[in-house]
């Protein structure tokens, strides 16, 4: 597939360089690695960092900023960063209150963050990890801890970053991340495949088909289905999410309709329209919605839907102002 790149080996470093040129007032590189932290780390609060493979932009870079994550470690395309990279980001973001790593649940990410955390502890850093396991398609109910993390990371980062900002301790911040993770579910579908820089498409999807239950790395979904109208596909997705989350009448949720790279906002809004109708039928209250391409799989066409059920604490944290170059929240809506 055609791509605007120079050398395959340089895509992550050059993309980071370009980002930092535009955002030097707020962000800086962690020396020697593909990682970044926000400027002026606040030593009096817990730092939240995240990270993972590249190719999901704006995740993970776009999760860093005010009221969100304080740093991110970037791996090669679709591959977790190595422990050295993660350790340097942990050190770059470290504060008197410690560092919480928000990690999406893939073997590579958990292993490399695990090794990096051990190394950080050896250096006397207070570090903890919370996993994001929002993808309902990746393991059955009852095995939630086996599930992989996808776009729900955005919402988990939002409330976790706000908790750190409010002065929660490391343990309390981790608990917020875990609570958010317990109350969030996502499901993703793909219409076209994506290709790693320098290689062919990972797989094919026929013109009249779509993949149900995609991860975020262009790996095939759990099922190939015949393409239908948007409303039908969205209904299938929302049914799985709502059942798994056991949504009740009068529950309040934040909805994230996320494009996976090549799906137009025209389509994403159509998806959200149907989510809204279905929730209304169920009597579930959509407190707020985010529509956009926040967690992508390169140029894959597709959409993921995430729902975060709110309680009073999560609602307050969700409402806190946040600003990154790719995501913002103006504060409580009226």
């Amino acid at each position, binding site marked *: 597939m055609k791509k605007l790149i120079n050398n395959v080996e340089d895509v992550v470093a050059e993309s980071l360089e370009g980002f930092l040129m535009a955002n030097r007032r707020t962000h800086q590189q962690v020396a020697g690695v593909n990682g970044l932290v926000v400027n002026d780390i606040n030593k009096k609060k817990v730092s939240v960092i995240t990270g993972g*493979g590249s190719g999901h932009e704006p995740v993970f870079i776009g999760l860093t900023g005010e009221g969100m994550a304080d740093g991110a470690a970037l*791996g*090669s*395309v*679709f*591959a*977790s*960063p*190595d*422990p*050295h*990279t993660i350790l340097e980001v942990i050190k770059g973001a470290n504060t008197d209150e410690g560092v919480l790593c928000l990690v999406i649940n*893939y*073997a*590579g990410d958990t*292993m*490399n963050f695990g*090794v990096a955390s051990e190394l950080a502890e050896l250096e006397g850093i207070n570090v903890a990890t919370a996993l994001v396991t929002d993808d309902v*398609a*990746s*393991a059955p109910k009852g095995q939630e801890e086996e599930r*992989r993390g996808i776009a729900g990371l955005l919402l988990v980062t939002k409330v976790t970053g706000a908790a750190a900002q409010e002065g929660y301790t490391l343990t309390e911040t981790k608990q917020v991340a875990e609570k958010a993770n317990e109350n969030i579910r996502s499901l993703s579908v793909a219409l076209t495949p994506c290709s*790693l820089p*320098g*290689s*062919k498409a*990972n*797989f094919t999807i026929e013109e009249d088909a779509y993949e149900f*239950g995609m*991860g975020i*790395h*262009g*790996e*095939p*979904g*759990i099922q190939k289905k015949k393409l239908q109208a948007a409303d039908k596909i969205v209904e299938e997705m929302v049914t799985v999410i709502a059942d798994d989350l056991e949504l009740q009448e009068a529950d309040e949720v934040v909805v994230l309709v996320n494009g996976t790279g090549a799906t137009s906002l025209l389509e994403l809004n159509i998806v959200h329209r149907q989510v809204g109708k279905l929730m209304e039928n169920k009597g579930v209250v959509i407190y707020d919605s985010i529509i956009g391409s926040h967690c992508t799989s390169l140029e894959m066409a597709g959409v993921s839907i995430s729902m975060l059920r709110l309680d009073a604490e999560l609602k307050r944290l969700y409402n806190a102002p946040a600003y990154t170059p790719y995501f913002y929240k103006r504060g409580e809506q009226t």
Partner: protein
Amino acid sequence: MKQLNIQETQNMLLFMAERLMASKELLCEIDGKVGDGDHGFGIERGFKAVKAMLEENTYATINELFKASGMTMLHSMGGASGVIFSQLFLGAAAIPEEEKLTSEILAQVMRKGLEKIKATGKAQLGDKTMIDALEPAVLELEQESSGSLEEATGKAMLAAENGVEKTKEYPAKFGRAKFVYERSIGVQDAGATTVFLMFEAMHTYISQQNE
């Protein structure tokens, strides 16, 4: 050939690094069938760093040589394979210091590596991972530990190859392929393939020294 000295062992690892770097596309293609198609990139990244390291340095013991290779892979590859494959070499940290490589010492290094990998990755035989090639290969090395390196690596290579074939029958339980469980049947495991290629490279290098 009964043993390799440190320099010869270093040359063998260098040969292995070059062979694995050249296998990038094959490994990506296999991984792309049920994974995300990047295994070959990670392996290339890791062995490229190992190659550069081996060309720059000399080592006083076999253990240091293997450990340095493992640490270089750990801090250059990323992905699950970065942690897993580096541990195969880091197994050398758990055995007494040696200045030569024999079948017995290679078997010990690989046994310790296998134990570390199983502890980290939690995979067992039959889970469609690199263990399916590595464990039978280590067993062959141990069986042949009093014999020549050529014989031992040759049998380990065949055992690994047989293990790769078996991975086709299993549904995946680990890595990203586990999410497509049923659909992974019929596809060989990319990590197991890498294990086979590593043993094949060792065997080829050693056989060439005998000629």
